[in-house]
């Protein structure tokens, strides 16, 4: 890592860590850099910045680096780190919190992972449940990853595993839950491709 002038971040560091804690990143300030999380992480081999390094970024208030790190989208949420942390830091929770903040601040990294989560939630909002068939189709359109797994999809279709979507009776109640989402739920109606609007129903119906 290059030299870093920490005085630039004075004042911001505490507030960023507090934002992360408020979004569920429990006790991030307690991390003492032992590296146990990175040692046990099943995905660390695919991470340029290791989990303990991301914890340090949060502690130092290096919000840009933390939010732009592909590590936060590589985390599969297996909670091995959280389970083992000797300081009680919820490392996986910090990763989720950083994803939440990155999406809210429109930090465009790991576009495929972001597209997946947006499509996923837009379907819950539309039907109250996930229809995996529509999830895959919409994800493919949003990520332009059109041709992957067509063979698997065909087999699943033949096995009767891919069904047309059906909404639940209480879908309005489910939609009401989205009103608490930051930005009043506007985010789920994101345009992922020009001309492709994910949710067609009126927001907040």
């Amino acid at each position, binding site marked *: 890592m290059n030299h870093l002038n920490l005085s630039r971040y004075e004042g911001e560091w505490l507030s960023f860590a507090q934002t992360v804690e408020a979004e569920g990143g429990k006790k991030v300030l307690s991390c003492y850099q032992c590296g146990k999380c990175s040692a046990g992480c099943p995905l660390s081999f695919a991470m340029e910045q290791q989990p303990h390094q991301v914890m340090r970024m949060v502690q130092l208030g290096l919000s840009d680096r933390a939010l732009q790190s592909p590590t936060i989208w590589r985390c599969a949420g297996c909670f091995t780190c959280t389970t083992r942390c000797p300081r009680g830091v919820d490392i996986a929770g910090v990763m989720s919190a950083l*994803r939440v903040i990155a999406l809210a601040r429109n930090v465009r990294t790991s576009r495929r992972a972001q597209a997946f989560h947006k499509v996923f939630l837009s379907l819950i909002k539309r039907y109250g449940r996930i229809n995996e068939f529509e999830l895959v189709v919409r994800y493919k359109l949003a990520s332009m990853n059109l041709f992957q797994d067509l063979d698997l999809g065909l087999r699943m279709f033949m096995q009767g595993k891919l069904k047309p979507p059906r909404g639940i009776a209480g879908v309005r109640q489910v939609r009401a839950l989205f009103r608490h989402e930051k930005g009043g739920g506007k985010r789920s109606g994101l345009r992922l491709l020009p001309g492709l609007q994910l949710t067609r129903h009126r927001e907040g119906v």
Partner: protein
Amino acid sequence: MGYAYYPGCSLHGTAKEYDMSSRACLDFLGIQYRELPDWSCCGASSAHSVDHTLAVSLPARNLTLAEQMNLPLMTPCAACYSRLRGAHHALRSDPGLAKKVLTVLGSEYKGRYEPLSILDVLYQYGPEAVGEKVTKKLKELRVACYYGCLLLRPPDYAKFDDPENPGKMERLVETTGASAVDWPHRTECCGASLSLSDTKLVVSLATSIVDMAVRHGAECIVTACPMCQANLDMRQRGRTKLPVYYVTELLGLAFGLEPKRLGLTTHMVNAISLLRAKQLA
């Protein structure tokens, strides 16, 4: 008594064999259950990556529905289990969040019953009692029990078994007469929902888990999570391919139920040929 049964979205789609075999086992053992009426998605795999409140409020709707039935909520899906337990925990420990969520839902939540996994229910029924119902011993079948993540972690609220060295699934599986192999990747991560957005990564995780099971003499893997099953079944690329069963499929088979009724014909890696070779199907 009995349980409110929460299948979750996967069990109505790609994991329909888990739904079929779960219901078949519960029926066979005489465990009472009713599907939670008008249940909604628990938010796994995405809500907790997009909004902290939504991660609690989506499962909370189902918790309050079950409480209105005055029944404990039970789900076969490990991901739903995790979200439901997490929300139950949050509603009971964070009054501010609870108030916010429950106001929108217009209901109360006392949290009398903890949400359970179907494995909890089977384990409470008792491995010995399950064993007494076995009519077809799955002798000489060497099984690798794969717990994955969400039944065990985080241990704050996922309390199925010891997070580092679990053993309950082995005890259940061994009641069928199968032998559970000792192997190290039982609680590794399969990559979960990265399967679509980061497929290569999941291929490497799934392949290393299956290869480890092969190296320890397993002929098949058994799991209790639709995401683990799908990832291991679809994404393994090793030289030896192993079928990946749901724990309820193997139990159902040992109860003498028809393989077709258990959904065994709808796997990616052929799940029947190993059983035929052992004269178990």
